[in-house]
């Protein structure tokens, strides 16, 4: 099968030099971009440029794709701490049973561990889930199709 015979829907979706040529049993194979293709050329350009820049000082795009979390609002703060407290407790329980190699390093304060976690766990899921969905639910969605 030549690249031209690949249905437009597939070529448009993946790029025609990705889906090409012939595999076992005359099935279309999906080899990497072949030499001379635009994708391959771009790969060679990228590699040469990156190697030339390597080791030289100065920030380049994506040198530090890292960020400190923006100051969370009340809802996100509650969610972050609540989830961390519950998850860490569940890991501590697993470690206590010998099911995990180590207890987690605590990231939330004692009040979350000693106050929030027991309270949350005492409530049935039917009750808790309503709070969780109200606080952490996505808005403006149908549940499913």
């Amino acid at each position, binding site marked *: 099968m030549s690249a031209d015979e690949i249905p437009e829907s597939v070529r*448009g979706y993946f*790029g025609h*030099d990705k889906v090409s040529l012939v595999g076992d049993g005359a099935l279309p194979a999906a080899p*990497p*971009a072949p030499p001379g293709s*635009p994708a*391959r*050329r*771009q*790969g*060679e350009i*990228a*590699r040469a*440029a*990156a*190697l030339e*820049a*390597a*080791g030289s000082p100065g920030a*380049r*795009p*994506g*040198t*530090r*794709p*890292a*960020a*400190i*979390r*923006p100051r969370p609002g009340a809802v*996100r703060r509650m969610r972050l701490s609540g*989830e961390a407290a*519950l*998850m860490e407790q*569940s*890991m501590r329980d697993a*470690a206590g049973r010998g*099911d*995990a*190699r*180590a*207890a*987690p*390093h605590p*990231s939330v304060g004692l009040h979350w561990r000693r106050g929030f976690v027991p309270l949350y766990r005492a409530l049935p*899921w039917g009750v*808790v*889930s309503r709070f*969780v*969905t109200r*606080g*952490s*639910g*996505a*808005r*403006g*969605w149908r*549940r*499913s*199709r």
Partner: protein
Amino acid sequence: MGEPISIAVVGGGAAGISAASMAKRTNPDATVVCCTEYEDVAYSPCGIPYVLGREIPEFERLFLIGPEQYAEVGIDLRRETSVSAIDLDNRTMTANGNNISWDRLIICSGFNYLLPEVEGNDVDGIVFVKNIRRGIELDQRLDSVKKAVVLEGTPLGVEMLAALAHRGIETHLVDPGSWLLSQIADADIAEPVQKSLEDLGVALHFGAELEGFERSGDGLAGVATSEGTIEADLCVVATHKEPETALARSIGLKVGSSGGIEVNARMRTSHEAVYAAGDCVEVPQGLTGIAVQGLTGAHAMQQGRVAGANAGDGDRTYDPVYVPWGMVGGNVQIGGASFGEHLATTLGIPHIVARANGISRARYYPGVQQVIVKLIAEPGTGKLIGAQMVGGEGVKERADFLAFALKRGVTLDDLAWMENVYSPPIGALYEPMSVAAQNGLAQL
């Protein structure tokens, strides 16, 4: 014929590129501009760890389309172009100092790794794997690295552990959690991956909190943790994926409880002319409606397509997610869908666990491997709420299938009686998912 509108896309990752392509395909008369800070588009970042680990021979293979091919289909692709401001009233944005007008805007600004707020976090030797060109630079640097630390056992962290170990580098994981992939996987499911990484020589430090980075001259000398200092000349930061929402917040778009931009099922934000997709947004988990963010490249690509179609005057919706996931850790495949036992326990969701140790091919066929399947189901009804798997092969297809089954509300009874392929080289007579379901029925 579509309306001759202008559509601007911020971001050239999986979401941005698929949004731009779909917008143009849906509305060929639209002007589509796509801006990205990076030098390249249409490459697979997912392949970078495997080139670094020498499993893929060269970076060039990760490029999927050449940039000129976007011009051929009428997309104005602007690389190394940073969008610094958006003006909602005038419907313009500033990109590398130039004004670009738009009728519809699609924000696909993606994610950043969460930067550890500790002493020395700017030291040379702390690296992030994201942009392919920086990956190529890192590849060269790895030739002289003797000892490395990977910060956090996230999916990327696990891939980088194996990659560094393959390069013969003394490799350590520092993770405050109790096991690998603890945000998504169960401890027993992660254990074979941990063992496999240890077989490659990786040292795993769980329950260890990062305390700082130690310098020697300009470079990194060690990583200080609550469990002591680990000598290292390189640290790969593979922390949580934090949504990049600075632009969205600057124009007052609503941001949700996960930190992602709020969108509706058409991927429209709180502003009628602005769409968003990919790792910068949050979408509902299918069973609970809880907003989740920072999913996978596959989710980013599909969300981008929905946003692009709608921005181009089409009509598509995106469904709540059941998040099939899977990967190779060491030499073992691990994956799942929706909730595992650990997450269900964490949230307090009542559940039973149905488990089976199965095999991937007929037991006499060369290459047969174990596949462990855990199904998590609602007590009483047996309705599936999640799954976890680990094994030598066949995890991805099962994860995809189970995510779809979850979406359709299947029960353990349905799975216990499911049909399956039996052919010695590719599947055993007893399908492990079905056996797990049968085992679970006894507990209902």
